């Protein structure tokens, strides 16, 4: 295990703490261990990638962290609160207020304009129209989508849609942004732009992003990569001061080490 990256000066607070999480599927006869006692932590302002082969448990992990699914045992702390002991009614509120989501298939509402899609995350928090307007426009400027705010999703390119979705995830200034294969449906140019956007979000707005991906190129934009195999943390790689190119090579090495069906990297 490589030691955690530490910037000079103050130690950033831990945003996400996953402690010995187990997730079992199925009944008595056919028990599947999707997560087998996984533990790790993410600090504020980190852009962390999670990689692993199909069936390694990375989506289950993300679902457990995003409160969409519940862990069988273990604890998950986000911003200090233990989401594994929260009631169902509190979880929706927590999800609304503390988490931001970016999905592979965008999950934009096709009946709403770009502006309305981003605003939605704030309207369900009952923010004032003036504040909504200010924040939507600010985040759109950072992501370079000011021109498409009046358009409907079907009038946008894939990259624009995903940036609108990212704006929606980030506009509430959540504690943690969870991205599930955000570049999966994008062409390489759009993917590159999006990932650079993520980097600037982390730097300019101090966002914390946890991104699941199986694409090494996407992963190479992260600060740190966690590799998962058979429901356990297998390895992790920290970018540190190295260039994106050498970080990419590092990631490829681990992938070849992982072997097996991890070769499904595009």
């Amino acid at each position, binding site marked *: 295990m490589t030691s955690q990256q530490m910037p000079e000066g103050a130690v950033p607070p831990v945003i996400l703490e996953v402690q010995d999480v187990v997730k079992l599927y199925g009944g008595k006869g056919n028990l599947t261990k999707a997560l087998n006692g996984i533990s790790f932590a993410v600090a504020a302002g980190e852009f962390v990638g999670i990689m692993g082969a199909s069936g390694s448990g990375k989506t*289950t992990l993300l679902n457990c962290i995003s409160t969409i699914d519940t862990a069988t045992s273990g604890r998950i702390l986000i911003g200090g609160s233990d989401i594994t002991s929260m009631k169902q*009614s509190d979880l929706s509120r927590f999800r609304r207020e503390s988490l931001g*989501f970016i999905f592979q298939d965008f999950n934009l*509402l096709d009946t709403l304009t770009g502006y309305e899609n981003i605003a939605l995350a704030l309207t*369900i928090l009952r923010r004032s129209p003036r504040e909504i307007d200010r924040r939507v426009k600010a985040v759109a400027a950072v992501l370079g989508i000011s021109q498409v705010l009046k358009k409907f999703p079907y009038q946008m390119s894939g990259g624009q849609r995903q940036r609108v979705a990212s704006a929606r995830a980030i506009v509430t200034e959540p504690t943690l942004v969870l991205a599930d294969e955000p570049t999966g449906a994008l062409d390489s140019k759009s993917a590159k732009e999006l990932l650079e956007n993520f980097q600037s979000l982390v730097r300019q707005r101090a966002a914390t992003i946890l991104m699941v991906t199986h694409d090494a190129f996407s992963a190479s934009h992260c600060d740190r990569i966690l590799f998962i195999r058979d429901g356990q943390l297998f390895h992790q790689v920290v970018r540190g001061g190295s260039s994106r190119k050498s970080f990419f090579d590092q990631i490829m090495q681990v992938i070849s080490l992982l072997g097996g069906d991890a070769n499904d990297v595009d």
Partner: protein
Amino acid sequence: MMSIELALRNVRKNLREYTVYFLTLTFGVCVFYSFNAIESQQAIMGASASNGRVFKEFTQIIGIVSVFVSIILGLLILYANRFLIRRRKKEFGVYLTLGMNRGQISRILIGETVLVGLFSLAAGLALGVSLSQGMAVLTAKLMKVPVERLQFVFSAQSLIKTVVYFGVVFGLLLVFNAFMISRQKLIDLLYADRRSEWFKTPKLAQSVVVFVISLVCLGWAYGTVLTGGTAKVLDSASLRYVILAGVVGTFLFFFSLSGFLLKVFQQTKSVYLKGLNAFVLRQLSSKINTAYVSITMVCLMLFVSICTLCAGLGLSTSISQELRRGTPFDATFSTAARSNQAEGSYSGVDLPAALAQIGLPLGSVASQSLVVRYYEAGLTVPLMVRENGFEQRHEAKTYLLKLSDYNAVLRLMGQAPIALSPGHYAINYAVANAAMKRATQEYVDSRPTIAVNGVTLSAGPDTFHDNVMEVLQNQDYKMTLVVPDHLVTGLAPARDALHLNYLDPKDRSESLVQQAHPLLRAELKVDVSLWTRQEVEAFGNSTSVLVAYVAIYLGIVFLIASAAVLAIGQLSEMSDSLSRYGALRKIGVEDKMLNRSIFAQVLVYFGLPMALAAVHSVIGVAIAEQVVSAFDKGSVLGSSLFTAAVLLIVYGGYFLATYQGGKAMLRRQYAQSRRGVD
């Protein structure tokens, strides 16, 4: 066989998904059977001849109405079916890629349609047969006929008719579905759930202009009705324009409404950017934008339904009230020349003597009796009748009646006799038609003089009376000129009437009198007619029941049709939008909030056409009230309350079913997404 198995499984799956479709089919079959089975209801009542005839008429009229009803229900089923198929295009596409051919898919679809048809037919018939039992008792009560024996009421004829009519509808459905499948390309089937058609929201200015035009159309139609009154509106030419303006106005209203409302709400940011409001408004506007034609249809159907229920029931009450006017005594025999006899050949008959001759002396049946003779004077009275914007001259044939006879009739009815100063006459005309009544009053007000038997009489004050002076069912009341007794000497008799009030027990007297009628007709060489209070009341009750039933039948069918169209439309919209709700849930929207947004959508979607239809109906019922009160004073309030209750139950029921169905879809989708399909 495999396709049967698949069909069975599909039906079971769809049973849950499309409760509303099955409910509608079942209700349709149930109502259709119940009303067509009316003839069988007389089984629980006394099989008296008059009832038999009434039920025959019932069945005939309901039969005619049923053809119309079956067309409405047929169209409704085709409409609902289109949604079912559209929802399942992808499934059919999958069958095709699995190597099934179109014939096999058609067979699955045939199997499903037959199963659905059989299921809803069976359920509807079972419900209809049970409903018939209660309805039979209700019918007897409404017709004021005693329930003689409570027994199982069943009409094989109605059953067969229902099966045949709905069989034809399902047959058409089969052809339609097979045709649909054979025309589809695989690629279109597989990607049917990808929405490619996008409606451009119209420009605000355009919406506003169209919206204003629609309000002008509706305002003009309302204004014409409200200011013009019945006479002007019922004039056929103007009515046509009012209806046209109403329909066009309604259409343009819904056509422009969503664009208009959306823009208005978007301007008020504090509302638009609150909770899920933006989402709900977008959902509604995209829905109304694509469905304005069907919403217009629903609104107009609701309007027809409300008016039919209200006016039909009002008319029904007024019919029975009007007919009850025609029963001042227990019975009236009257004689006149037979239609094949020469004019002037009638010389009068002595009815009490003739009755005694055939073995029924008056004392054996009547506690009170009165003989009255009408005289022929060759007089007609010119009336200027103004109705429906037309003025028409009507020559009212008038018979003469001695003042003493008139007063005797009044006394028998328990009214004060009138006095006639010398040289004056009085007119008694029981006509119920308001225009005729007005014309008679105008005639009398003009103080005309009439020459009777060489003497000129003038109209005095208090000249016009409208007493019904005999038992009569058909309301063919004749005008009577009441003159001083001495003036009729030497005039030819026109008709004689014998009024009876029965001895107790009245049923015995009634049957004796009824038996005497044919005997008397044979005995006397003139036309003898007999009307009794019991006959007129039974006829009045059954006629009003018939009118009420036809109104309820049509009203409910229209109501079911419109509510079902809305419910199916909303649910199919809901299932198309499931992914949107999934997205909302993922970004942290609570179920409570989602349910509220569904409620808001269903409420607006059901409320809009109902609101406009209700406003239309206030106007429509105002017209109907005038028509009904032109006939007689019928209470529209009572029927309005009944209509409101029916609306609440049927429309409210569909509203709730839609809301619950929408919530259930959401829960299922959530459960599926939680089960994890990754």
